[in-house]
């Protein structure tokens, strides 16, 4: 049974519809992530689920009931949230902030019992926020604050967690940390997480289902494997084709324009640094010869003026080698990333020797001075 469900849901502010006809569902133990450009409406969807905004059509379900039929109390027991707004609670220690998660379980005056405090500490342990427990919330770093807010949501002990950009502004350590906590919640505790993320690499790592929100509707729903392929990201974010690499998740700056000045011979990991250096310095270059499954292939295609390539595992054809030689003639310098060439890389050896004969071959070290 799904824990969160949207049926032809329209969301927006006031009477203005931002997104319409949304339909999706999240099951127990699933992490569902909304991605999409700024202002596309990811937060609007989340705000609708937490009843901050009224649905403008269709139905949103949390658990079995439509949210419209859930009272505030019932909602508090069904879902907990971590939103983006900066909190400025005066004079509250982190433990006190986390403890507010237990409010739905306390009596008239909101006094926590022993059991409640145990849950608070348990939640803080889970996100490694224990060392800040007695510090004032306003005095800790953004990353620590986010951990505390997550602990707050966790100790509310709800089936569903709604997180709005839980990793924004955090350094890589906290990003990973928060991701680990989310995975733990979903996979071991069976909670359902609906969140928005800007980091595509994280979304891909953690999500079971990804929803692409494009400002009008959900343009695509699927597993990370279905979403991160082809030109889905380029279309979603309105960016130039090939500036995002669905294989590695890397992003590339547009290639330098003009006649090529350098030739990076061979592929492999070492060429990545060269490509990125040359492109950064706005030095147009050509790359080759490399196979299409080379780690450097998509970057070469995206950032080199020209890329000589061949289907993986096949020797490079004569025609490609001839054109590569012409390119060597046109370039001012050549640099090789290989210390030797294998039997199928005959093409690269030929181009390498050709460059050497014409005195254009330079060391990698010399490139860094260009």
């Amino acid at each position: 049974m799904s824990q969160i469900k949207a049926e032809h849901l329209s969301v927006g502010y006031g009477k203005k519809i931002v997104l319409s006809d949304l339909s999706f569902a999240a099951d127990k133990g699933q992490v569902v992530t909304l991605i999409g450009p700024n202002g596309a409406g990811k937060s609007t969807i989340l705000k609708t689920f937490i009843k901050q905004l009224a649905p403008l059509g269709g139905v949103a379900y949390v658990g079995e009931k439509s949210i419209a039929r859930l009272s505030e109390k019932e909602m508090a027991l069904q879902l907990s949230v971590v939103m983006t707004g900066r909190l400025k609670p005066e004079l509250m220690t982190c433990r006190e902030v986390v403890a507010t998660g237990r409010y739905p379980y306390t009596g008239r005056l909101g006094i926590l019992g022993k059991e409640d405090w145990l849950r608070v500490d348990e939640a803080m342990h889970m996100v490694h926020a224990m060392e800040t427990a007695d510090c004032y919330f306003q005095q800790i770093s953004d990353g620590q604050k986010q951990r505390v807010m997550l602990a707050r949501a966790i100790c509310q002990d709800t089936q569903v967690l709604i997180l709005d950009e839980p990793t924004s502004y955090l350094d890589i350590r906290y990003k990973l940390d928060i991701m680990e906590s989310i995975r733990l919640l979903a996979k071991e505790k069976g909670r359902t997480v609906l969140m928005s993320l800007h980091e595509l690499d994280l979304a891909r790592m953690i999500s079971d289902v990804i929803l692409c929100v494009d400002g009008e509707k959900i343009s695509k729903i699927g597993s990370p494997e279905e979403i991160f392929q082809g030109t889905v990201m380029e279309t979603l974010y309105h960016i130039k084709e090939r500036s995002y690499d669905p294989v590695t998740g890397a992003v590339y700056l547009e290639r330098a324009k003009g006649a090529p000045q350098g030739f990076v011979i061979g592929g492999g990991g070492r060429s990545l640094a060269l490509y990125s250096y040359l492109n950064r310095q706005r030095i147009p270059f050509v790359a080759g010869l490399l196979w299409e499954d080379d780690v450097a292939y998509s970057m070469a295609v995206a950032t080199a003026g020209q890329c000589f390539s061949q289907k993986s595992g096949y020797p490079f054809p004569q025609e490609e080698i001839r054109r590569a030689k012409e390119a060597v003639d046109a370039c001012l310098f050549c640099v090789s990333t290989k210390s030797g060439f294998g039997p199928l890389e005959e093409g690269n050896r030929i181009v390498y020797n050709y460059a050497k004969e014409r005195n254009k071959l330079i060391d990698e070290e010399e490139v860094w001075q260009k």
Partner: protein
Amino acid sequence: MKRGLLSIGGLVLLLCLAVMAGIYLGSVRMSVLDVWNIVWHKGGADTAYHIVWDIRIPRVLAALLLGGGLSVSGFLLQTFFQNPIAGPYVLGISSGAKLTVALAMIVLLGRGLSISAFGMVVAAFVGAMLSMGFVLVLSFRVQNMSFLVVCGIMIGYICSAITDFLVTFAGDNNIVNLHNWSKGSFSGMSWETMPLMAGMIVLGVVFSFFLSKPISAYQLGETYARNMGVNIKGLRILLIVLSSLLSACVTAFAGPISFVGIAVPHLMKSLTKSARPLFLIPCCFLGGAVITILCDTVARLAFAPTELSISSVTAIFLVPVVITMMVKKQRGRL
């Protein structure tokens, strides 16, 4: 937790001392023994008995109740606006109440009618709600707190100006009292109004105390409060009505009293080192009572037999507190 309870204990002790000082000190000097005798054994000379029982004790009690109520009202407003410089005086709520009370008095007295204490409270409540309504409309349009406070101060000035105007041109001898009152004063408190005053204030404060839970949720902001199961709309309405009621009560009985509403909640936060309403609301009541009794005692004694208006005294003592707090806040933010 411990600190909160200790603070409450300490404040109760201070309050006892302040009440004793308020009863003992006055422009007519009496020995401690005499006062003791009068309070506990109802003995002593007639004049002295009259001074203690009919003048000093009601006055101290009024300062206790109204000062406490005002501080709680300030705390509620600060919670509502999520800003530490909100208060009934700066937001113009006290002045609104003052204006309607003055109007009611002048209209009724002009026709030879008298106005009951309850009538005054009602009039003040109407005025407080009107000012509050105005401030609220502005606050929905402009989300900027300093703008809101400036508007509140402007509203306060307009209301005070109109009140002054009314008082000046009313010119009737009956309204001489009005002048003192419109500047804020605890003089002339009697036992007759005490039950109403005590009833209203105690009710307001106790009700506020039982809102501790939703208020502490609200301190994390609306989104989280809603997620904790708080009915936001209901809570906001309650906060507004309670804070207006408390400050209206104060204004009806003692006129506008400045800065107690802002400064006391802040002082109490520094004292308890916590923002938990469960402790803060009782502390605000007790602390507000102590400070108001002391300020009123100063107002009576500093230039006796001439009395200062209570607002002049509270301003002198509490404005530095407010400024220190604002400087600290600004530094903290940088």
